[in-house]
């Protein structure tokens, strides 16, 4: 089961590297933090999971989206 979660995290991180749209990459990063908080919980580290859930899902997603909103979106290669 941990192997399955790790392979899902690997697929999502490869997708966030090769995604053309920045918002899709941010959504994939948020899903990565969801799955890694779940993985930390299964590996019996609930304090690390609390920190990952608070920082990874909430704060970093808000900061990334805020940074994308204040820059221009370049849609030339779609």
């Amino acid at each position, binding site marked *: 089961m941990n192997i399955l979660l790790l392979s899902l995290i690997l697929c999502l991180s490869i997708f966030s590297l090769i995604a053309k749209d920045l918002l899709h990459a941010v959504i994939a990063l948020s899903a990565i933090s969801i799955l890694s908080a779940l993985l930390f*919980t299964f590996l019996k580290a609930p304090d690390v999971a609390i920190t990952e*859930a608070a920082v990874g899902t909430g704060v970093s997603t808000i900061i990334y*989206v805020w940074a994308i*909103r204040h820059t221009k*979106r370049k849609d030339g290669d779609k």
Partner: protein
Amino acid sequence: MTNFILSGMKYFLIVFATITTIRLLLGPSASDRLVAMNVLSSIALALLILWGVTTKNVLYLDVALVYDIFGFLGFLAITRFLKNTKDKL
């Protein structure tokens, strides 16, 4: 019997998370990916509470609570971003 049902629920929820992740990878627009991430968050919440019930430890319920509050803030930020864009969703 109870432990058998709980572990069966755990594997079912892992399979659901896998299918939802495939939808998140394939979804053509940002709205599809956002809904897939919301469903994935609900599945993760159910898995955390299930793990807390299985191990009879109250600390995992705190993880689920903190995760749900901050995950809602992240969804709110992305939804506000989608409101201000004029392109196709």
